[in-house]
């Protein structure tokens, strides 16, 4: 199944892309997807900061099980204001 992944801020720069579509296996969690992406994109591997996970514009826990067509965002430390 496919999910859409959007990158923002330092993760967008490191991934070299703002948005990608990725084929993943059924039952994958959002936390597992992050580990896969760190292998796909070597420049994401050094990212050790605490990330939050968002799916379809809501924060979710790392064990959220992804569904077809989910929009996934890995949220680096926010700094609005």
């Amino acid at each position, binding site marked *: 199944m496919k999910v859409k992944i959007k990158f923002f*801020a330092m993760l967008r720069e490191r991934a070299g892309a703002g948005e990608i579509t990725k084929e993943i296996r059924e039952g994958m969690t959002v936390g597992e997807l992050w580990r896969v992406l760190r292998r796909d994109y070597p420049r994401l591997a050094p990212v050790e900061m605490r990330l939050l996970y968002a799916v379809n514009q809501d924060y979710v826990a790392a064990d959220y099980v992804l569904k077809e067509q989910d929009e996934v965002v890995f949220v680096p*430390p926010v700094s609005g204001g």
Partner: protein
Amino acid sequence: MFRVTRDAIDLQELVDFVTDPEAGAIVTFIGTTRNNNEGRRVIALDYEAYPEMAEKELTRLGEEAKKRWNIQRMAIVHRIGPVQITEPSVMIAVSAAHRADAFEACRFAIEEIKRSVPIWKKELFEGGEVWIGTQSGQPLNVNCSSSSSRSNSSTD
């Protein structure tokens, strides 16, 4: 009114939005761009948002403020893209029957923005640029050895 925009923010628009016949107070907050941060000479800030979620989170925090305080209306507009020194990056307006509720809800709103709304600022300073983040860890893309590992906002 909970909005992310590339345009300059108009305070009067927010004040007009929260104006309410039952309000005895309107409190406003303007976050502006400071020319220095952590010893660096800041040239400008460049904001990026996950816009759909940022507006959703702003709306959520507005609803939370209404539960906690007796307020009439709230408006928050956050700018994205480049923001020059002295220019506003965020404006908040809150109306309430009494001033204490308006002050507290306004303070809550800016603190929540900094804590949980998916907006990021890149600081462009003399000698480099750095993504600012306060949740934890080190900012990436530090192109200058004088950068420190953690930072607060340049708009506090």
